[in-house]
């Protein structure tokens, strides 16, 4: 019994560390949508800073810990948010995953480099290597108390518990009882709506990253006595704690917190009570946390989209689109020929070896082009396929099988393993899939490749290079040339695959699985095929890579290596196979070029490889495309043709002049609070609005009517600041009767200026309670009480999550706070959508009430009948223009029909005209 209690008590210490990590992971993820694989690296850096402050600079432990947790770590979080996470949040999942993985590699190297630089500069720091038994915040060595027979606790454990408990309470208070926590939770629910309430989601995510990094900092300080300064250990415990975050579905901080504690206890119980047969499976106990992570992901995480993640990442403009295939491929062909010639002319034996190694790596890297580039799925298990294939080949060759048969066998084994790894892909996608493949990769390292018959101990297997007739690949030069040819063939095959029916099926599954299924494409088969082919390529390349060393040991290509590979490939560009080849050569040659010509510091190439992922935040297509674009722009400048920037056409100067003329006539604008002038706007370079003018007046309702697709919602988005127009102006009346250009102001700023958008659908935060929803607009409790007086129905359920209300009640909840604190301008996009007629009536009563209060209202509706009962002015929109605008009395059936059918009216008299 005491044993069990002991396991639980001490398991809670490990659990506390997991809990703190998981909480930080979830907090940052939910606020920004970025899953930070480098969270463990942040903890490591914090441990390093704490160690150097304490041991190097001689600061007492407590101030050193406080500096780390409240100074360094949040500052790092803030900095990373500014330069990276904020931009990443707007990109697809692949660049997000890769950029943070790059950071995972770069941060520890950066830390060690800075320590070295400071030491060289004469700062008296302690050596960061070979440090064990580091002191924590408490006494060192830790004091130990015996609680009962076999159960004890030491001061470090006690401090860990106390800190964890304090953090738990503080987080709870922060999230549940402060305006900041309310906003954080609101932005998790709906980032856009939060912005529309005048709260900057960017600032919130910055704060979330600071808190998250602060938690990582606490882990660094608390875990220093346990993990010392081993960066890889911090990253490993982060991956383990991801299991706890999965338990909280990456949304709930409290569940993730509890999950972390539970995880520590379960791990201890497994270590203490696992049946003895498990000892026969080498690596079983090591892999328990990863088993838990994998199972947790499969059971708990269900993604909405079942396929890849590519819906957001649109391909970049193809500058070579119009060129003939020969012209397009000419540079690559030339590069290949140059490399081949180089091998036989000016290169030395050493560089030939590097090139051969780089090409072997390129062959493996091409596998990423298939699974991630084509399939939109991030696999972190590619190194596992490489090892599996090479070990298989080595095992067979030790039995006298020829190289080529062994190569085929290795490739097949890797492909089959790929299909097994793909099974979670049928359920998971994006970052969850990446985590699942990572868990499998660790299981491979810790269990599969620990099997003696497969790994052959530390000596591994010999993989002699093949000799075919006169071609002896034992020569590096011949191997390099053969690899160059093989790489070229695989590149061509992958290009053909992309253009084949299967390739199109893969693209279809990647971007829209239900649509793909509807067109008769088997999602299951396509995904399995993608992983199978990709793993096969990795395995095929792996045998060659191993043959470069003529030996394969099970530690040659580890899961951690796979992470670095991914960062390098994606940083170069994942969309085309040629980029993977460049990545492979970079991987082999770059560190040496650096060492030869720049610096001998081993950390610098690692930092650069890692930070290459960071460049993705600037351009998710990778540095090759970025350089090509820069080259294209440069050439365009020299050729004298203006480079087309993101499809924004220069606006017509004439239209602009018109607008300016009308602007300074106050008499015509009496009562106008918000106006749009000559607005052009659209999405992805395609204009939806072609010059829209609108005036919204105080105490007046402007109804914007039009058929589906006329541009009403776009006009609302421009008016509220959610979408920046490509041309034209949005102006807001200022206090002295003039107008202020607010075109470039964000939705947040406009909301603060009193322009509020009630977006299409329900403008509420479903996870927040009714009271919290109200608090997003009504900060003072007295104001909220006025809402409750008016709506007793809401008052009775103020602690109920808004998501559980009926559609009508939700709309009521969205409008209610506005009646208490009316905005200057309210833009409501289809407030009646999907509501019962009685509720619609009520909503329009509120609208009329707001008008009485002097609010300027812009109402968008598709159905005209109800709105015409309340509107003062009506504007019809069709195909991106205001086709008619005038007082409600002048609207008749003829006009309505014409507007909805997009016909010209009255000789087109009123198009673009602003009525007074």
């Amino acid at each position, binding site marked *: 019994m005491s044993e069990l209690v002991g*396991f639980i008590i001490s398991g809670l210490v490990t659990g506390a560390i997991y809990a703190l990590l998981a909480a930080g992971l979830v907090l940052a993820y939910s606020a920004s949508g970025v899953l930070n694989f480098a969270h463990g690296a942040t903890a490591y850096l914090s441990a390093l800073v704490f160690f150097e402050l304490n041991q190097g600079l001689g600061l007492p432990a407590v101030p050193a810990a406080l500096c780390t947790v409240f100074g360094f770590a949040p500052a790092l979080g803030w900095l990373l948010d500014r330069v990276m996470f904020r931009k990443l949040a707007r990109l697809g999942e692949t660049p997000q995953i890769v950029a943070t993985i790059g950071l995972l590699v770069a941060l520890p190297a950066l830390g060690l480099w800075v320590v070295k630089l400071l030491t060289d500069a004469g700062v008296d720091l302690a050596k960061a290597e070979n440090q064990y038994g580091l002191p924590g915040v408490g006494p*060192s060595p830790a004091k130990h108390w015996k609680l009962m027979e076999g159960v*004890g606790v030491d001061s470090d454990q006690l401090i860990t518990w106390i800190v964890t408990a304090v953090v738990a309470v503080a987080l709870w208070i922060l999230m549940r009882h402060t305006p900041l926590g309310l906003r954080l939770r609101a932005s998790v629910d709906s980032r856009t709506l939060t912005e529309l309430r005048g709260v900057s989601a960017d600032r919130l995510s910055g704060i979330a990253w600071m808190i998250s990094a602060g938690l990582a900092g606490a882990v660094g300080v608390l875990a220093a006595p346990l993990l010392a300064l081993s960066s890889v250990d911090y990253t490993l415990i982060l991956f383990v704690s991801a299991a706890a975050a999965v338990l909280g579905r990456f949304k709930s901080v409290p569940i993730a917190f509890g999950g972390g504690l539970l995880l520590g206890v379960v791990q*201890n119980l497994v270590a203490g009570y696992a049946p003895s047969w498990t000892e026969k499976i080498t690596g079983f106990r090591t892999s328990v946390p990863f088993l838990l992570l994998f199972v947790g992901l499969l059971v708990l995480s269900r993604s909405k989209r079942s396929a890849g993640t590519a819906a957001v990442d649109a391909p970049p403009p193809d500058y070579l689109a119009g060129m003939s295939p020969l012209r397009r491929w000419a540079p690559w062909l030339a590069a290949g020929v140059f490399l081949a010639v180089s091998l036989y002319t000016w290169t030395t034996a050493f560089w030939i070896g590097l090139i051969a190694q780089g090409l072997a790596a390129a062959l493996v890297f091409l596998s990423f082009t298939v699974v991630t580039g084509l399939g939109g799925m991030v696999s972190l298990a590619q190194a596992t396929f490489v090892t599996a294939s090479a070990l298989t080949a080595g095992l067979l060759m030790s039995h006298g099988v020829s190289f080529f048969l062994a190569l085929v066998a290795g490739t097949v084994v890797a492909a089959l393993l790929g299909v097994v790894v793909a099974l979670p892909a049928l359920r998971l996608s994006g970052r969850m899939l990446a985590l699942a493949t990572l868990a499998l990769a660790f299981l491979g390292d810790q269990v599969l490749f620990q099997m003696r018959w497969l790994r052959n101990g530390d000596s591994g297997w010999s993989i002699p290079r093949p000799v075919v007739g006169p071609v002896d690949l034992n*020569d590096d*030069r*011949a191997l390099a040339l053969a690899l160059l040819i093989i790489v070229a063939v695989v590149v061509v095959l992958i290009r053909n695959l992309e253009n084949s029916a299967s390739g199109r099926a893969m693209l279809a599954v990647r971007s829209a699985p239900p649509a793909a299924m509807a067109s008769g494409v088997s999602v299951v088969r396509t995904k399995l095929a993608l992983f199978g082919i990709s793993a096969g390529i990795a395995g095929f390349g792996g045998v060659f890579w191993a043959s470069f060393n003529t030996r394969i040991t099970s530690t040659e290509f580890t899961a951690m290596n796979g992470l670095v590979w991914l960062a390098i490939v994606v940083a170069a560009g994942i969309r085309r196979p040629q980029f993977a080849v460049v990545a492979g050569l970079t991987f082999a040659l770059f560190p040496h070029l650096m060492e030869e010509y720049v610096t001998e510091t081993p950390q610098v190439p690692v930092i650069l490889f890692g930070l290459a992922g960071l460049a993705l935040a600037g351009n998710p297509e990778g540095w090759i495309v970025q350089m090509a674009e820069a080259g294209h722009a440069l050439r365009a400048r020299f050729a004298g043709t203006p480079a087309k920037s993101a499809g924004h056409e220069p606006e017509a100067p004439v239209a602009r002049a018109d607008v300016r003329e009308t602007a300074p006539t106050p008499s015509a604008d009496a009562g106008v609070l918000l106006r749009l002038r000559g607005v052009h706007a659209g999405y992805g370079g395609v204009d939806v609005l072609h010059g829209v003018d609108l005036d919204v007046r105080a105490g007046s309702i402007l109804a914007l009517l039009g058929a589906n697709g006329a541009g009403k919602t776009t006009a609302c988005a421009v008016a509220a600041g959610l979408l920046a127009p490509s041309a034209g102006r949005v102006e807001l009346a200022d206090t002295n009767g003039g107008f202020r250009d607010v075109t470039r102001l964000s939705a947040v700023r406009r909301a603060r200026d009193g322009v509020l958008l009630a977006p299409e659908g329900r403008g509420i935060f479903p996870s927040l309670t009714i009271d919290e929803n109200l608090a997003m607009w009504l900060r003072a409790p007295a104001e909220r009480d006025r809402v409750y007086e008016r709506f007793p129905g809401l008052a009775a359920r103020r602690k109920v999550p808004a998501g559980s209300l009926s559609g009508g009640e939700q709309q009521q909840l969205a409008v209610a706070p506005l009646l208490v604190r009316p905005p200057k301008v309210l833009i409501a996009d289809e407030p009646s959508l999907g509501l019962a007629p009685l509720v619609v009536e009520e909503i329009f009563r509120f609208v009329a009430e707001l008008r009485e209060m002097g609010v300027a209202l812009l109402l968008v509706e598709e159905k005209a009948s109800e709105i015409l009962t309340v509107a003062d002015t009506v504007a019809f929109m069709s195909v991106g223009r205001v086709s008619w605008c005038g007082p409600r009395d002048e609207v008749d059936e003829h006009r309505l029909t014409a507007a909805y059918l997009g016909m010209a009216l009255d000789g087109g008299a009123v198009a673009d005209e602003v009525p007074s």
Partner: protein
Amino acid sequence: MVPVLLLAGCNSSTTKKKTDQTPDQKGASASASKDPIKIGGVVSKTSASGYSKADTDLGAKARFMMANDAGGVNGRKIDYIGSEDDGQDPARTTTAVRKLVQQDHVFAVVPVNTTTIGGSADFLKDNKTPYIGWGTLPAFCNQEYGMGYNGCLVPMPGGSVNTSWPGLLTAILGGDAKGKSVALVTQDTDAGKFGLRTYQQAFPPSGFTVSYGKSTVPGTTVPTDWSPWVSEIMSSNNGKAPDVVVSIMQTPANIGLFTALKRAGFTGVLTDATDYDPALLKQASSKEALQDVQIFVQNMPFESDLPEMGKFKEYLSKAKGSPVTEWNQSMMVGWNSADLFLAIAAKAGDNLTVESFQASAANFSDTYPLVGDRKFPVGRKDSFGCGAMVQLKGDKYTITAPYKCYPTVPFK
């Protein structure tokens, strides 16, 4: 494609010849003159686990410096170009070794102190480049060009396993281990299991009973909590604690396990083979955790007053350019690897070529006080089997069993 490959084939035969020539050229040019002998090493100076063997480089540099001060090897100076850092990353090890051989044209790769040298063994053999390091890996066993400075420390089934560790423990226990029980703890990896198997066979011949032998400690991250292992070990000897606990793990794991065992009231002998490092005494908690622990050392302990140890310390300071007051095993690995190279090269005679070096190494025996009796070819498959036991008492290590060589027993 076929013609290109044929072209590759034609050319390959010429380059192959050229590669074959390289070592000969090294030898030829060397014998023609009294040029310095170029030597470079590969050492994991950095690693993701925060462990560094950087001082191996200093140890080798010191030993070569001493040789040069004495006039070199048969009149030829050693040009030690330092050690490449491989970051304990296999790909970087490969590149580092290739750079030394193909770009720097070293005569031999000394010292080698990295766990990831395995992938480069074949390359070194093909390029006829001798290498010497710490023989804890198969790359130093039964290799034509690779040697461990204290022999091959990886026992092979059918071969033998040395009994120095149990022998030294027996000496500590008063010369008789009969009836003493020992618990063996290793990590949950294949290598850990293999180590367990080795010591399960090495301990009984000295009289020990292995009452506990498990490879269940997670192989990646060190456990933050040791209670499950401690409770098992404490009752493994028929419900009682064993007399000796042998940890075949690295420092961070040893610190955790020993602290937990002591707290649980363990009063027997704790022993490991990695924690002989004065740097560990700087932290109060590691100093406490390792207090009284018997540490098995395969080199002559630094506390020894042999004149060779005096030279070692003298030249380390000289090589560093500032006084060295803390010595560690990495320095010893570098020093002893360099010393073995120098001894073999000296015996090879005036015309040092790869061939003469290999011929000298093929049948070599001498006694070097810091390592013991060095014998090849025996050392290509067996450990020299020497060691000492030191114990941490207060602020310093003391020798509890002097440096001695022990016999081997068959390994099944």
